[in-house]
């Protein structure tokens, strides 16, 4: 489906070390427009670090990142311009606690994009509508459930019109009964053609939404391919074991 689409994100040979430990040992992949790339891997394998190296919240020691033909790494000029176009959704939401849901979504539009308040408000409201939270627009994060918080944070990312959104375990901090509503939103984004990189342990979601799954272990890509390739026909015994374990641990989700 995405065969002939242009490349949105290109990551080449990313290395990162913290002191003695080399967390990323040369990771490369590309993401085409409209593609959903799912990254899986054991805890501590470097998934979060990899996502952060993409939008330069962490500066990689080596390697390059391109966003739509422009290099993001090694730039002298403003990284903030790129970050606007790379949405990020965090495991623990990181909503701005002193702002209502609506203000959380509009603040980037006003402060970063310089949109006027009225337009920003309208846009923010529409994004909340899109994630099913129009009634919660004026509530503060502390008044929302975990699932609602994460949907606000997705709306916040969407409002910026990003070229790609990075999700770092968006459902890992949620009570089991709230996971579904968030996955539903992300799934709909995938269907609507949003380009996404999703780190997750939700195998049901990965199987049904991913165009490609990347299995990372010890800072390296061990296996990658379509869900079919990985689940049915993995190259490595490790991949099979990991998938088995993770499916046991997190159970199969309903839509399987």
């Amino acid at each position, binding site marked *: 489906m995405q065969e002939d689409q242009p490349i949105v994100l290109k990551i080449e040979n990313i290395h990162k070390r913290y002191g003695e430990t080399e967390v990323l040992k040369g990771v490369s992949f590309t993401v085409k427009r409209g593609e959903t790339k799912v990254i899986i891997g054991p805890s501590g394998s470097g998934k979060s670090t990899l996502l952060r190296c993409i*939008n330069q*919240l962490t500066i990689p020691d080596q390697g390059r990142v391109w966003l739509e033909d422009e290099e993001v790494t090694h730039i002298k000029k403003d990284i*903030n*311009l*790129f*970050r*606007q*176009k*790379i*949405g*990020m959704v*965090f495991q*623990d939401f*990181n*909503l*701005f*606690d*002193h702002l209502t849901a609506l203000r959380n979504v509009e*603040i*980037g539009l006003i*402060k*970063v994009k310089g949109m006027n308040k009225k337009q920003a408000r309208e846009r923010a409201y529409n994004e909340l509508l899109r994630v099913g939270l129009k009634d919660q627009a004026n*509530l*503060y*994060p*502390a*008044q*929302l*459930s975990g699932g609602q918080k994460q949907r606000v*944070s997705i709306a*916040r990312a969407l409002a*910026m019109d990003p070229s790609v959104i990075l999700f770092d375990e968006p459902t890992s901090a949620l009570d089991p009964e709230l996971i579904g509503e968030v996955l539903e939103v992300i799934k709909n984004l995938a269907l609507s053609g949003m380009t996404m990189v999703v780190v997750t342990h939700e195998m049901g979601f990965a199987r049904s939404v991913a165009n490609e799954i990347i299995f990372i272990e010890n800072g390296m890509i061990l296996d990658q391919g379509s869900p079919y390739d990985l689940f049915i026909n993995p190259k490595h015994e490790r991949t099979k074991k990991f998938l088995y374990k993770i499916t046991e641990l997190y159970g199969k989700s309903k839509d399987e």
Partner: protein
Amino acid sequence: MEESWLAIYEALPYLLKGSAVTIGLVAGALALGLILGIPMAINQVYGNKYIKIIISFYVWFFRGIPVLVLLFLFYFGLFVLLGLDLSAFKAGILVLGLRSAAYQSQIFRGSIQSLGEGQMLASLSLGMSKIQAIWNIILPQAIRISLPGWSNEYSIILKDSAVTYAIGLMEIMTRGKFIATRTFKPMPIYLICALIFLILTYGGVKLLSELEKKVRIPGFGNKGEGN
């Protein structure tokens, strides 16, 4: 007994004038401490290595020396050396303010750090600059969290302000001492001084706790209310 009441009656207007001086001094010192303390806190969290060292030294210096010693050191020492001809009032604001900056910076620093790095990461990932993130996201939250500590700082400075007696500033204490000596009625006079301080402490703390309630973020601190 009657004489005591008379002494109080006569001293009261005079002491109240002193209260105005004290209030001015405390307000000035708190403001100076705030203006310096917030940027110091920000730089202690987000600044480079060198600025962090400089601020740590500043904080170490002003927190490690008794306020009376600081006052003399500056008023009779440094200011004279620099040829600054400051009034006792201005000198008091400066010394108490510089010292308060050290304490306030630590109040704000603690609050900023208690927010966790997620707030900054989320701001940056939206494309905000570090400064925008600090101004729009970090400070509005950190200042709210700092209010109880700041209220405490107010009551400490208020009480410390009495040391300016030692440089002859005509605040509550200096005036109290003056009248007490003249009327030979130290007990009632100092009681009134103490009472004025109590009222000022109570009033200020009350005011700040009202402010705290007013800016409280809905949903915080009322767990168990559902959703």
